[in-house]
């Protein structure tokens, strides 16, 4: 763990501040002195803040709808709010380009309907596009966290406010909102961190003019070969994001408390005769469906269609394309190779993440010791470190002397495992904590050694958590692009990288087909996680 994560980070830091054996602040100074970099840092924060606000604007009403109304498929929809944790960002980016792009399905439809000459919505390659895509990702997180608390909020609070004469608005702002604030703050903090560190979406939707720290590190390292400058940027970003993450952990620890509903909240059927309130809710649902479903359906539709002599025809061409074993110039490798790479890395990362995560989960769940909080934070730090910076760190540490790995692709597996194992821990710890000590002690009393009791009792009992963690790790590895892009040589390319290449080459058919495949696999992962995972990430049911 220390070797895999903290050593590379140190090496990266060293790269940023040590030149020819001497300590220098030259590059760090450059980062702060150069107006361009200052602009990038501010823009990173600005877009993250705006994205978080939009996510709250969309996520909070959904939390209300879940709390207040009954409608078909409510449980399924509620489970879908976990999708952002597993849906690869690059597939969403492709979906956004296809749907919201200037020549995208939405604009084309609007032009058709209103007989317009040019596209009415110019969203992409601007701040708007980035913020919208981030809202797609983070609104469900807000909904999930706030909704879980809202549904458990005892009605008596509101009723007593009502009995005291408070009107609707005063009840919401005076009673309900303050009670929801903990979950809202925690969710918003998480969303902010995700947006701050987001890479594929900004890379794909920001165009040339909009760059965040994350994209800039990539540009400096990979495109311009300014490694020291990139490292200095990474230092700034890692410190900032660790600060945010620490804040988040504090928030979470401070606010986590169980509110058990004494009475279940009454819900009203949503699909009844329209009232002004219902109509607003319907309109809101229609609008947000456009945001959520539009891009995904566009990807699927696009993967099965092709323009042919001015006609749209349905075809499996793109699917045969992505399984092609021959070299493809747009990618720099055979597409099939990338699919196989993804599977191979995914399985390896899953195993490695399990090996790292299981012992740590065991320690966290079972032992109370001094400095446990610090231990938790150190162990969970990868959650808050940018993936691009991690990639850069592993690149510096393991693909260069003195510790150059013979099998360079192991660095990719390592990156994926580091990014995934906190999820393994989060999947296992609640299960382990839910285990009573009784069965283990009973086994020992009957003659089992400590290890024997672990093997016979604890391991079988946490297998669900283990399964969820493994699936999570696999899905994360499969969708991971930010760290991989820093580490991958052409022959190590993975599916998200291929999607990105094809997107950059504006060959969307292949990108869509591969995205659809990824969505399918990660969607399957999501089904497993929702079936077996218990109360992950505040999503209690």
């Amino acid at each position: 763990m220390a070797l895999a994560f903290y050593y590379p980070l140190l090496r990266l830091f060293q790269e940023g501040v040590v030149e020819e054996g001497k300590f220098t602040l030259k590059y760090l100074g450059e980062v702060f002195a150069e107006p361009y970099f200052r602009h990038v840092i501010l823009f990173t924060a600005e877009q993250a803040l705006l994205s978080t606000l939009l996510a709250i604007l969309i996520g909070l009403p959904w939390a209300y709808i879940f709390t207040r109304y009954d409608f078909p498929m409510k449980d399924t929809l509620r489970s879908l709010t976990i999708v952002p944790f597993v849906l690869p960002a690059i597939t969403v980016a492709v979906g956004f380009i296809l749907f919201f792009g200037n020549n995208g399905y939405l604009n084309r439809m609007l032009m058709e309907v209103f007989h317009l000459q040019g596209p009415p919505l110019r969203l992409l390659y601007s701040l708007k596009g980035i913020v919208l895509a981030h809202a797609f990702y983070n609104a469900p997180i807000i909904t999930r966290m706030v909704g879980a608390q809202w549904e458990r909020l005892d009605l008596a609070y509101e009723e007593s406010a009502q009995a005291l004469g408070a009107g609707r608005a005063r009840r919401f702002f005076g009673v309900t909102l303050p009670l929801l604030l903990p979950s809202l703050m925690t969710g918003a903090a998480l969303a902010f961190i995700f947006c701050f560190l987001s890479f594929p979406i900004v890379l794909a939707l920001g165009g040339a003019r909009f760059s965040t720290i994350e994209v800039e590190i990539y540009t400096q390292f990979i495109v311009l070969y300014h490694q020291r400058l990139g490292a200095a940027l990474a230092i700034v970003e890692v410190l900032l994001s660790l600060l945010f993450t620490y804040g988040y952990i504090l928030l979470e620890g401070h606010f986590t408390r169980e509110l058990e509903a004494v009475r279940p909240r009454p819900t009203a059927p949503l699909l009844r005769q329209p009232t002004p309130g219902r109509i607003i809710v319907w309109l809101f649902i229609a609008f947000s469906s456009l945001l959520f479903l539009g891009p995904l359906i566009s990807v699927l539709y696009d993967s099965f269609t092709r323009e042919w002599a001015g006609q749209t025809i349905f075809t499996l061409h793109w699917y045969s394309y992505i399984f092609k074993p021959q070299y493809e110039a747009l990618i720099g490798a055979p597409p099939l190779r990338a699919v196989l790479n993804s599977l191979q890395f995914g399985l390896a990362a899953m195993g490695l993440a399990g090996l790292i995560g299981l012992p740590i989960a065991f320690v966290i769940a079972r032992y109370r010791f001094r400095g446990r909080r610090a231990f938790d934070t150190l162990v969970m730090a990868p959650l808050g470190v940018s993936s691009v910076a991690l990639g850069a760190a592993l690149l510096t540490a393991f693909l260069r002397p003195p510790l150059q790995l013979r099998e360079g692709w192991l660095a990719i597996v390592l990156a994926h495992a580091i990014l995934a194992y906190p999820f393994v821990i989060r999947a296992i710890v609640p299960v382990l904590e839910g285990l009573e000590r009784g069965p283990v002690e009973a086994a020992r009393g009957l003659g089992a050694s400590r290890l024997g009791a672990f093997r016979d009792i604890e391991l079988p009992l946490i297998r669900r958590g283990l399964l969820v963690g493994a699936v999570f790790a696999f899905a994360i590895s499969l969708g991971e692009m930010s760290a991989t892009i820093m580490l991958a040589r052409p022959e190590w390319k993975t599916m998200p990288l291929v999607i990105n290449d094809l997107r950059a080459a504006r060959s969307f058919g292949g990108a869509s087909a591969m995205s659809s495949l990824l969505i399918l696999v990660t969607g399957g992962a999501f089904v497993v996680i929702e079936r077996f995972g218990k109360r992950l990430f505040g999503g209690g049911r």
Partner: protein
Amino acid sequence: MIQVQLTEISKRFGEILAVKDISFTAEEGEFLTLVGPSGCGKTTILRLIAGFERPDTGDILFDGRSVLKDPPEARRVGMVFQNYALFPHMSVGGNVAYGLRFRRGIDRGERVHELLQLVDLEGLERRDPAELSAGQRQRVALARALAPEPKLLLLDEPLSALDAKLRERLRLEIRRLQRRLKITAIYVTHDQEEALAISDHVAVMSTGRIEQLGTPWEVYYRPATEFVASFIGHGNLLAGVITEVGDKVKVKLLPEGPEVLVRMERDYRPGQEVRLLLRPERIQLNGSSENKLHGQLRGVEFLGDALWAYLDCGGDELRVKLPALSPELEEGQELELSFSSQDCHLIIPSSPRG
């Protein structure tokens, strides 16, 4: 069958001294019960004996040999847990057979069958523990603990999750099983009635100490401390002062009660302040015993097989157990009660502990 001896055992959890300097011995084949309110340290003692906790001071001896260095699996102790702690991923048979994995030379299938027969659960080998009733789960837990032929059986509130009727039946079964298998047993409960019913000896505990260790009869009729007197059974503890010491002791009830005669038990001094313990069922309405008490009836509770009558006798309220078919009683009525000097027990109040 072994003898278990604890000598000056103490155990601290952080700031809390859970067990303070406890010593006792459970003889071979004895059924010893630790009883006390929750938090008194009784479960900790059990866990110390089983080896799940290590004592800070003192020693634990099995047949005179210290077992402190032995891990739980080496102590050959059968333990029944409060919530049964059945392995949820194993069948009933799997649960019972688990301990046999670590014993050689036992035919597992036969032994499992034998034990399930013993606890009246024949034919349920393949069931899932979740499909069983609470009482059946308790029996499985018992069978599982007994399967590897332990030398000592530890039971931690095994019946507390069951309803009252089932509790009574199962405690009888546990007791008979223990007698039949001739196994030393240490039992923990907060239910004093259960403790009296099931045990050879009872250790009454409070805040990490043993207040009294004795037979059920002793702790009920001859409690050593006020705590024991009030924790075990229903008791009237009347304040009094000794006025004369002779063949019998004369006690003047405070503040303005009559003088009563009490059986001589040990050296008493005139002028000593005492508490007089009078069990409600040892008091008669009218009657001819040597001690008389008058009081005004404040209320009656009907229990089915008896009545509780509450009387105002000047000092503390007196609780009396009367036959269910007592003559009509009316609130406010003056009653004459009598009780024998043999049924009185004196407790010298201890000075408050530091």
